[in-house]
């Protein structure tokens, strides 16, 4: 789960990491007041769940409180389109008003869990402010990495190795080591999946400050982090994805094509998207229906397909294992009883209780396009969507 920059900085601050002075505002007047407290000169930052804000005009310098109020008025209520958002952009309902910082150096500090090292890994780089994936690709030698074993936890030597590697000499070295120790503790105690401070700046007055910060929380751990789960901002999420979630249809991701997909299993669902694409079509969504051994989730998935105006055909590909094919089939029939479904449906069924599932579909008297395998199903769905 993603959270906003202002929320991330509050969390850093609570973890003992010094952040730039400032506050979040939901109105222009509030932004003006905060700017006045900061002495007028400040930075206004649009709060959206996407990077690339600077280039998109989402980060602006203000010279006075009145200027700050004006900039905030223009940002608030607008939609910010960045390289990482959809064409419609993300809504701006808050801005972060922060002190202007005189930057001497820009660094990068990040943490994630490395599946190969089977441990949290801390990454640091002198190439701060840049897209770190770009750095990893073009200048991999500029990224310092340290896997942190869960038995040792974060030790000062981890910090020294990274800080000296960044060219930080005492007293900045000590500031950096303490910041890293706090970040590590925050990461492992709050179930973060990603923490990125980019850039981490050295100010001209010798402070180490996170200028921007991104924290993601492990979705699997939200059940035990209710205070973090409460930070979710549904406005930043896709409307159809939100609708799906509210209907209990998890693992739905909106894509931009015309073929709605219902598949069980994430790997098979991805493979079906690949198969549709190789058959010349475009999937409207990713959907892993999971072990839907109740018909309601199937019916609700059809509600989402109906709400998606781009859907011209639906492909159902179920390979029953834990999920039972007859239950899915019954769900498809119930969906037709509950709503008017006009798009063609291509169905491929296999696995647990497949014969019972096929009988249910036949007995319903409804019209479906049946397919013998995945390839056949994808080709038929592409054809049906073009009609």
């Amino acid at each position: 789960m993603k959270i906003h920059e202002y929320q991330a900085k509050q969390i850093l601050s609570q973890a003992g990491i010094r952040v730039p002075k400032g506050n979040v505002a939901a109105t222009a007047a509030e932004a003006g007041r905060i700017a006045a407290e900061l002495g007028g000169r400040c930075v206004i930052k649009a709060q959206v769940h996407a990077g690339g804000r600077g280039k998109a005009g989402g980060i602006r310098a203000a010279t006075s409180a009145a200027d700050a109020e004006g900039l905030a008025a223009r940002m608030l209520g607008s939609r910010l389109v960045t390289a990482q958002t959809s064409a419609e952009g993300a809504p701006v309902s808050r801005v972060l008003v922060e002190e202007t910082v005189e930057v001497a150096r820009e660094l990068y500090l990040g943490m994630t869990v490395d599946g190969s090292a089977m441990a949290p890994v801390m990454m640091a780089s002198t190439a701060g402010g840049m897209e770190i994936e770009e750095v990893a690709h073009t200048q991999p030698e500029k990224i310092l990495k340290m896997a942190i074993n869960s038995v040792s936890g974060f030790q000062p030597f981890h910090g020294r190795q990274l800080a000296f590697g960044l060219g930080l000499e005492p007293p900045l070295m000590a500031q950096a080591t303490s910041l890293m120790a706090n970040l590590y503790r925050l990461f492992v105690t709050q179930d973060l999946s990603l923490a990125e401070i980019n850039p981490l700046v050295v100010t001209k007055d010798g402070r180490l400050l996170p200028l921007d910060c991104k924290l993601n929380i492990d979705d699997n751990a939200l059940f035990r982090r209710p205070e973090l789960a409460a930070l979710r901002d549904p406005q930043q999420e896709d409307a159809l994805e939100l609708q799906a979630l509210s209907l209990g249809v998890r693992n739905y991701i909106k894509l931009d094509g015309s073929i709605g997909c219902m598949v069980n299993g994430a790997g098979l669902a991805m493979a079906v998207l690949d198969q549709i694409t190789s058959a010349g079509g475009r999937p409207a969504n990713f959907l892993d229906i999971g072990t839907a051994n109740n018909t309601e989730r199937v019916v609700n998935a059809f509600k989402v397909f109906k709400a998606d105006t781009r859907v011209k055909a639906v492909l159902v590909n179920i390979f029953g294992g834990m999920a039972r094919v007859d239950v899915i089939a019954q769900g498809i029939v119930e969906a037709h009883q509950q709503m008017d479904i006009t798009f063609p449906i291509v169905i491929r069924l296999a696995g647990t209780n497949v014969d019972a599932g096929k009988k249910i579909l036949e007995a319903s008297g409804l019209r479906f396009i049946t397919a013998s395998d995945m390839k056949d199903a994808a080709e038929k769905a592409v054809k049906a969507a073009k009609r």
Partner: protein
Amino acid sequence: MSILVDKNTRLLVQGITGGEGSFHAQRCQEYGAKVVAGVTPGKAGSQVAGIPVFNTVEKAVRETGANASIIFVPAAFAADAIMEAADAGIPLVVCITEGIPTLDMVTVTGYLNLRGARLIGPNCPGVISPGKSKAGIMAGEIHMPGAVGVVSRSGTLTYETVAQLTALGLGQSTCVGIGGDPIVGSSFADMLQLFQKDRATRAVVLIGEIGGSKEQEAAEFIKTMTKPVIAFVAGATAPPGRRMGHAGAIISGSSGTAKEKMAALKAAGALIAPSPAQIGETVKQVLGKDSRR
């Protein structure tokens, strides 16, 4: 032969009194697995389909000689269950549970290394050695005994692949789902190593996914293998930065893309199936060529 599970496997089911635990304990039993015990704290003395239930893994192992465990307990308690199995000296632990917090798995894998236990999963379909034994949730009837090893990060895509193989008359030695989470107990490379040594296995199918770099590590091992590897990586059309169902299936940076993974596997000598529907055919081509030699 086969890998991981066979006729000598004495299976313990953790979470046996739950819906999924009891259902799959019985399916494993019907398939021919020796299911010797179940564990649910507080339910000792009861039975599930004739399988005795114990309060602790330690007691279950002591009384039944269980040497493998399959875990169905809910995500919040799964890390505890895995470590309990390893602590009781069980050498093979298969965890089916989905949705375990990633940092729990950091602790678990660290502990398992100390105990020398092997973990398959979590968030996986388990293991089957067709005709011999099953410690998993896959439908037994789609499999047939044979010489193709299958290792995959995905459950249902494995079923799809197995069904293709069986339809073409290509049986399987063992099929392993290693799981779709960022941290899993066993890697592709670990399984390839076992398949390379297994005399019953003539070729291996590897089914990868976007995210992480486990396929690239597998590629490094494939370079040293004498057996043919046929590979497919799902998610070529997945958008970057989005989690595609599995917690581990998220593209961040170019090394996580299907394209990059397939290129690494191909460069290591693996044969890439052109589409997910053609995995079986690709294996047939390879084994056909082999038998002519």
